[in-house]
């Protein structure tokens, strides 16, 4: 089913910036991936990018929603090769 999306498309993996920190939340259920992201985003400098690996379906919605609420920049996501889940990229906004 095609979706008439009012939201901007996710970033293109081909042009994705290199992450300064990778958070592995694979196998962790909501809200743990978001808690890990919130706890650790302060470890990178403002403007740098954090990568979050997660396979909980809620992360697909909650990572961009959390970025919107907390004024961080949601860069995009890519499906993981060879396993279920996604790599989300978030740029620290402040």
């Amino acid at each position, binding site marked *: 089913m*095609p*979706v008439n999306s*009012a*939201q901007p498309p996710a970033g293109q993996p081909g042009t994705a910036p290199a992450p300064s920190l990778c958070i592995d939340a694979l196998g962790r*259920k909501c809200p743990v991936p978001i*808690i890990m992201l919130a706890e650790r985003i302060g470890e990178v400098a403002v403007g740098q990018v954090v990568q979050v690996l997660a396979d909980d379906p809620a992360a697909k919605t909650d990572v*961009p*929603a959390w970025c919107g609420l907390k004024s961080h920049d949601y860069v995009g996501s890519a499906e993981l090769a060879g396993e279920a889940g996604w790599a989300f990229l978030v740029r620290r906004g402040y």
Partner: protein
Amino acid sequence: MAAKEALLAALDDGWADPGRLYREGRRASLLLDQARERVAGVLRCRADEVAFTTSGTQAVHLAVLGAVLARQSASRGPGHVVVSAVEHSSVLNAAAQAEQAGSEVTIAAVGTDGRVDVAGFTDAVRRDRTVLACLQSANHEVGTIQPVEDVSAECQAHRVPLLVDAAASAGRAPLPTGWSMLAASGHKWGGPPGVGVMVIRKTVRWRAPMPAGSREGHRVPGFPNLPAIISAVVALEAFEAARDEADIALRALTGQIRDRIQALVPDCVVHGERAWALPHIVSFSCLYVDGEALVIELDKAGFSVSSGSACATDTQQPSHVLAAMGAITHGNVRVSLPRDTSEETVTKFLEVLPQIASRLRGSAGQSRMAG
């Protein structure tokens, strides 16, 4: 209470099969006709446009699939169906089945407030061979009232029947005008389970998508549950009669939750706009809290709430409504207030919830987290 008395009385008086010619059957047939007239009075349609189903879900399934079937072309196959992204799962599931059978389906996006994007929806309606558009009167999870009357004119102009799933709002808010088909569910307005209502306007082309026999104008299969139908009709009239008064009281109570929750629970987001909300529903998400644990702890404290968080559902998928709104899905609570809710109950809820959220956040080991 009136609905319960009506149910008990109808078990004595209306137990028979309305399709039979003996005395009790004729009595049942009369009672069924009266029930139909009364529902038509509330919904402002003709009695012969009303069919009783076994649930709101069945009403939606029959309405969607019957509309698609009736406008299927012998040479070009099934047509195009438009649904909003936040429809009840019964609508989305019926659309998915139509899609498997060859229909094209467009899912129209909603904004962050949960209201369908009118331009996107009507653009989709204008597409060639659109045979059905589905837009709920209000959303069942976040309470957002949809701009049905903003899309209905466009549907009429393009001769596209508009199905309005009114389950969340029937008896609770004025029904929108301009619909061609309507579905509703008796238990949502205080009736017993097992009663749905499907209305198909006389001008709408519709064909029964399954063997329907002679019941309900050849539209719905099976022996109707007359005692439950009578009870649901009594409940609907009682709900309608007290609607304005209940609306004010319930808006004041959900308003208290909306006004105070963000100050009481740090990092809490209320979904949808108050201006477009049903009086009795408020939905919010507490960041960094496990939604299932929140529901369980609130239940222990005496509050029965539901949640759209993935961990709180059978499928482990987050609510498609919250996802379509781009909203936080974890730590979600939907409060749906019954009509007799007291102010004390809401005050108590607002006392208990911050303590539970704080405790669960502590146990999730994120007390170190800044804002």
